[in-house]
């Protein structure tokens, strides 16, 4: 059989319309070419990331980038199938990229070992799609607001679909976000239950559960006895100390059930994770990537929940966009100003804007507090800026965020200098 047959079945799906494909879709060469040219970014090379990289490579993507700051730990090996025992300690992004590149010929995978926050918009602009396999809400919120902030209404290429997956034990979810068009991660923040916390005073004075004793050892005893060592949850000696200290406290209060495993779980906030759930969610995100990149079938609108504890349960629905979402509720508007006007004059200009007659705004850029009306100490510290010219405070093209107590939402303006 000819070498060209390698992608036989994938290409059939891309070369032939199906009953559910968009009637305007043009299958064939062009679609395949556009898939191969789609540069795609994978955030996270862990349980989901390993699967996502494999799936994208076997779905015809040729130019894949992956970011992860972590190194491989033994507890990853029960699911992160691109890693072996001999890889422990090496960076996940590099090992994962090299493995998939070697196994699937013709795919290029570019790793970056570091934080997503290390990269700027220029970096994210080069991709067509971003797929996330993260375990941190904070990182999700960051990439979400970055991608929403990049949307430029005049340039459709600036809109980067974000496909996000997450798992916990037998459960997981996959969602598709079209920044600024559909419900974003910030709109859906209340779907992430906050980590349940126990009152500090319970931990300090009336422990009842083994977890309370562990929290005490971790948060209070450590501070008291080992102030000078910064706690490292990967250091076995540190965990061992917390475990022993927790055991002693538990004995003192006749509480049973403190174990080493529980100590690690509480201190590191461990979430159970298995290969099979990751496989389901990762593949759910990558088939959305394939559908978005090729239009061969309609993509998910916009949220799928999966639970496997009792049979196979999925629930697919459309999460709603929140009009008052602090991230996608108001996109940055461009405002053209003379850089020689003072900040005070600029505030007057904002007051005359028809869409938002801002009367008492406070303003900032990412780096600088331009003017903050309250509290008085900060007003005192920033009022000298009012007399400064914009060019001395803000760069051309920079974003200024404005809050005004008269409005429940905030505004973002991108300043374009005349």
């Amino acid at each position, binding site marked *: *059989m000819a*070498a*060209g*047959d*390698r*992608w*036989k*079945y994938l290409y*059939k*799906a891309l070369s*032939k319309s*199906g*009953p*559910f494909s968009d009637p305007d879709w043009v299958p064939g060469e062009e679609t395949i070419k556009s898939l191969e040219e789609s540069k795609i970014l994978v955030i996270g090379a862990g349980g989901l990331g390993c*699967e996502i990289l*494999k*799936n994208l490579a*076997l779905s015809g993507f040729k130019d894949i980038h992956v970011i992860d700051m972590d190194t491989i730990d*033994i507890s990853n090996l*029960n699911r992160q*199938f691109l890693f072996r025992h001999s890889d422990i300690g090496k960076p996940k992004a590099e090992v994962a990229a090299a493995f998939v590149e070697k*196994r699937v*010929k013709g795919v290029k995978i570019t790793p970056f070992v570091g934080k997503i926050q290390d990269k700027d918009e220029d970096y994210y602009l080069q991709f067509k799609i971003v797929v996330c396999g993260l375990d941190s809400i904070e990182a999700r919120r960051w990439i979400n607001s970055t991608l929403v902030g990049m949307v430029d209404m005049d340039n459709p290429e600036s809109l980067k679909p974000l496909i996000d997956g997450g798992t916990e*034990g037998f459960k997981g979810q*996959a969602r598709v976000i079209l920044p600024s068009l559909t419900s974003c991660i910030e709109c859906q923040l209340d779907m992430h239950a906050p980590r349940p916390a126990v009152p500090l005073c319970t931990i300090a004075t*009336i422990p*009842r559960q083994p977890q309370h004793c562990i929290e005490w050892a971790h948060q209070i005893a450590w501070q008291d006895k080992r102030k000078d060592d910064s706690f490292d949850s990967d250091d*076995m000696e540190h*965990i061992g*100390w917390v475990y*022993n200290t927790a055991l002693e406290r538990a004995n003192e209060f006749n509480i049973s059930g403190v174990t080493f*495993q529980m100590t690690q*779980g509480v201190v590191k906030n*461990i979430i*159970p*994770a*298995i*290969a*099979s*759930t990751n*496989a*389901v*969610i*990762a*593949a*759910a995100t990558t*088939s*959305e990537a*394939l559908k978005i990149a090729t239009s061969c*079938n309609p993509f*998910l609108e916009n949220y*799928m929940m999966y639970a*496997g*504890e*009792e*049979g*196979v*349960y*999925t629930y*697919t629905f459309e999460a709603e966009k929140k009009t008052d979402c602090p991230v996608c509720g108001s996109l940055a508007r461009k405002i053209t100003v003379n850089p020689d006007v003072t900040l005070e004059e600029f505030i007057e200009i904002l007051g005359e804007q028809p869409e938002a007659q801002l009367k008492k705004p406070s303003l900032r850029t990412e780096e600088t507090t331009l003017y903050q009306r309250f509290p008085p100490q900060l007003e005192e510290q920033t009022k000298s800026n009012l007399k400064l010219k914009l060019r001395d405070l803000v760069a051309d093209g920079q974003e200024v965020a404005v809050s005004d107590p008269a409005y429940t939402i905030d505004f973002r303006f991108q300043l374009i200098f005349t």
Partner: protein
Amino acid sequence: MTSEFPHALTGPSSKERRYDRQLRLWAASGQQALEESRVLLVNSDGPWGNQSTGVSGVVGVETLKNLVLPGIGGFTIVDPAVVTEPDLGANFFLEDESLGKSRAEETCRLLKELNPDVEGNSCTKPIAEILQEEPEFLSQHKLILISGPIKRSSLQSLCSAAKTLGIPVLYTRSVGFFSTFSLQLPAVFPIVETHPDPESTQDLRLLGPWPELAVAAASISNLDSLDDHQHGHVPYVLLLLYYLEKWKETHNGNVPSNYKEKSEFREFVRSSARTDNPQGGEENYDEAIAAVLKSLNPFSLRSSTRDIFEMEECSQLTPNSANFWIIVSAVREFHQQHQVLPLPGLLPDMKAQSADYVSLQNIYKTKARKDIAEVTETVRRIESQLGQSASVSDKDIEVFCKNASHIQVIRGRDIPQPDGDAQSLKRLRIELGNDESLISIFLAFQILDIVVTGIQEGKYPEGALDDESLWSSELDRILGVIASDASAPVDDEARNRILEAARELRRTEGGDLHNISSLTGGLVAQEALKVLTRQYVPLDNTCIFNGIRSNSAMYKL
């Protein structure tokens, strides 16, 4: 262990560290069950024809990946196929050098790399041949995975042999953006550790306290004289018991039994909280108020447990009865005698002083131990009546008693066939009337099975995989069977939905997409884990996944 000897700490073993994230789900007992399991994967039944290499087996290999990683004991791959180019574009557990070699051997080799503790074997003979030559072959395995579509005759002989041996079977198919799989469980499949939501298993017995608990409640009769600190730390369980007694005094000895009375009782508790403090209330009272509607219910047996008590296996014990049924029978006796199940013994966390909480917790734990002892005594008596020597372990009895309220028994169903029993046909007819149902995808797969069998048996040419009129006539035959017991034929809309689904299957001529097969391998592995660990609740019995809409559905077929 004390802090003077931090070095005496023996941390978790390397195996415990490797499996840490999954042990938090199924614990050491589930892990042990996995490690004692060998899984058979029948990954193809030979090529479909000269052009088509047959089923890719990606679902099977991906499923095994998800089982090798968490550490099953071993696996066997049966696959007569030779690795071809299209395999390399869909199967991650093959490499360029695998071309032309045995697919069974190559996938086995690369899967074994994932976990050195897992043993793997491969066999290049067709399964039908193996079954003839080695009668003991199947019984070495705890689970059989079959990648479909395969020849009808192979599927049937495998499934019926497995049924006789009581080995569960998972039959999978994945084509284009669709997939489906069915689970054939043994005739009786009991599960003790179903892992229900912890909220639903809470059993505090507030309406029927046993003597020791009643004594503890009576110990706060001086509630009004307690100082604010003590008053604000009385565990809410004791508060509710105390106020229930007060309530009974003014309600002819009755407890609040309906919503109206419970609401009144809740107000009564609320009005007894002290509010003249900096917080303007008391947390323990807040907890008590919140628990009234949820916890003040008389004990009632879940209907699924009642059904199990009434099963013949429970009432007609024999010397061959499984341990599960001996324990069920003992617990049923317990229930007959006390009108409650053994106490699980878990006390939720609540506002309380440490010592008060621990002593209340001990009252629950002690009672749970006492109940276990009583059940154990009955188990031993039954065993001797059956002429067995204590074969049920104490551990099993304890685990059972803790989970008694949510045990389940699944009656295994066969892998569905196009000409199923009347019940399944009726279910299919009803589903066909629902335009949101995924059953049309399932029926399209049934046509695919028939077409592939036809090709393998030389009845159809290979082009049949994308022959619209052939699929349409096979569909009409299936619909004829489905409508045979009914007054009216299946309507055209339903027929069109199946044809649409069939068109999506024909789009790739029966070939699969890696993504969808990988997803399906995840779902199938999930079911395999539940079957092998006997924890959580497996599928009963067919799941259909639609990768176009990203949704799925379960059907009993």
